[in-house]
């Protein structure tokens, strides 16, 4: 049960993020929703990394090395994936916010309702 808790949080975060992107019309809120969605996905990757069992894999650290008994360990690859995804997320969010700012400057708009000139 303990190992399922992160996945429940993942589903909650992603549901909230998707809800915002689907139904909220404020552009800043959409950017926030995108960030929430991304956090959910990142948490999903991190949650995947935690494995319970014998040490059968890549150079990972368990407490067994130091003489402990807990066989839980963490795979390094998903951490690398998450870091990459965070970096991409930062770039995306920064670019999106600058677009939103420019839209506000040019047209004075903040919602998707008004962002409908391309038709």
């Amino acid at each position, binding site marked *: 049960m303990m190992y399922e808790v992160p996945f429940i949080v993942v589903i909650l975060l992603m549901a909230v993020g*998707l809800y915002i*992107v*689907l*139904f*909220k*019309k404020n*552009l800043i809120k*959409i950017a926030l929703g*995108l960030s929430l*969605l*991304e956090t959910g*996905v990142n948490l*999903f*990757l991190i949650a*995947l990394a935690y494995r319970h069992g014998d040490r*059968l*894999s*890549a*150079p990972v650290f368990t407490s067994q090395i130091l003489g402990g008994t807990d066989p839980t360990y963490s*795979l390094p*690859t*998903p951490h690398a*994936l998450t870091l*990459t*995804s965070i970096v*991409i997320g930062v*770039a*995306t969010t920064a*670019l*999106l916010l600058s*677009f*939103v700012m*420019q*839209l506000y400057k*040019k*047209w004075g708009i903040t919602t*998707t*309702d008004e*962002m*409908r*000139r*391309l*038709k």
Partner: protein
Amino acid sequence: MMDAYDTFINNAPALAVAIPLIFAFSTPLVSKLGDRVRNIFALLGVLIPSLIIFLLAFDVLSSGGMETRYYVFGSDSSTRFPLVGGHILRIAFAVDGMSVFMGLLISVVALSAVIYSMAYIRRYSGLDKYYSLLLLVFTANLGMVLTGDIFNLFVWFEISSVSLSALTAFKANRGESFEGAAKYLIYASVAGLFFLIAIGLLYGQYGHLNIKFLSSAIGGNEEMMMVDKIALGLLVTVFALKAGSVPMHMATPDAYGEAPAPITAMFVTASQASLYAIFRTGFTLYGSNLTVTGETLHILGYILVALGILSMFVGVTMALVQKDIKRLMAYHAISQTGYMLLGVGVGLAVLDTAQFAEYGRTAMTGGIFHIFNHALYKGLLFLTAGAIIYRTGTKDLNKMGGLGRDMKLTALFFIIGALAIAGIPPMNGFASKLLIYESVFKFNPIVGAIAMLVSLLTLASFVKVFYAVFMGPRRSEFKGGEVPASMLTGMAILGGVILVFSVFPSLVVTSLVDPAVNALTYIEGETTRSLTLFTGSGSWNTLVFLGAVMVAGIIGLLLFMMGNKGTVPKGEGRKPYLFGNPTEIEGRPIVVPASNVYWGFTTALSKYYKPTEKAHSALFNDYMFWFVATAALLISIFAFLEVLT
């Protein structure tokens, strides 16, 4: 010397990506030396990787193209995949016939785009960033088609999305470009996150990221697991979105229409690279053991056919009513993407059955050949649209006219592109569409008929553009004559390749397309080298066709010379016939505005057009709805269809 060449070829996949990356990063530094230096530098940044891809393609294709070559980063490629406790730690590139096919296509279009940019974009500031991002898009597209690692694919996917949307907003004086860029960026980012979920599912299940290892792990199961099916649904939706398939196409015309013309050509290659990713997903990731995944792949084939028909039809009908020249062409890009989805979808739907040899392979050949043709003629058409906008300063078809008198070369390139996209013989578009028509007709006659109908509507739409832009009396407001030489060179590269492909379609098919199909399906087809292209039930030879046209032309000329030369039309016969709704605009002779040309057609089909135009609401939340709904639909089809039957 031979050794040095071998080392070079072994490292070529990595060099092809690393060199443009280094050029992209140093462009801002080099820009300080002057505009001319920067332009040449950017050109070299595309030219050198293109040469590397060309040599690599030559090497890969000379050994048949079916064998996959791996390039492992950071270690000896000969030890292949160093495993640590069953987990691969390194990123690998995988190169086969299909990869180099896509690589060649991307190089040709990028080369013409960068040459074209030199004059087209000269008037703007911030050009160091423009060229830097252009090279980054080029790198990302190459990376997408060369990589053999699914997470690496995600990274290239995102780099291409982010750089393309930044470039879409390049014309920073217009609010519209920010609207298009923002829509495309959010859409592509959400798609990227869905892609990441799929990667997470596959990694969590199998502990691999390498496509080859994932593929054998998926094929090693007793039957397909639910995780595989959900991941497949997500992957197909995401790539279909970036390829611009209906119903997730809404952001495509927004971004294509607002980006500078060379960037729109790069958009085309990016969407082709996503199509490549769909095909890799279907054939390579899920295709290692067809006894396990065969059923699901057939379903995927039918889904691709359905998406293809929708894209073709909705794309072309929406294009007919556009009055912005680049939006119109963007809808045509969507419509043409449908042909590729249709062709490869048919191949996938009958994969591993008796029908595959009968018509499935021909359909795939047509679909994949069409990818190359599409990138060429669509790139050319977008570049001509850019030339038109460069001269007229407007994108509105209703405000143009009479350009054919001063821009004869642009008009010529436009005609080449328009004939090719409409599939008029003897152009290359006809050769690939013929392969699709004939094989799809055997698959399902109605689908074949729709494909031909869409071609007709495409022709109709480009007749309208040609009429509105090039015909009519010379306008005093569009001065300046032909566009600068660098823009013409960019168009000439694509136009020249189109002509070569048109005259020798069968040679292109045997030397480029067949290896690509072999590499995808792992089935070696028969290849016969001849100048005639065989479609299974028919054949096509451009030279014979051109000969016949020439004979007919000579006969026509003889008949003309036999006639009475003195006849001059009189009275009503001298007036031009105008269809549509001719309107009088002040200070100009009576003309039919471009948006009225197909007034009768659109009015007759108003029952179709009203709901369709309402669905294209330009409201971003609706875009997201279509994406999420399609993802949900595809996942449930994959997950539950077998349970029900």
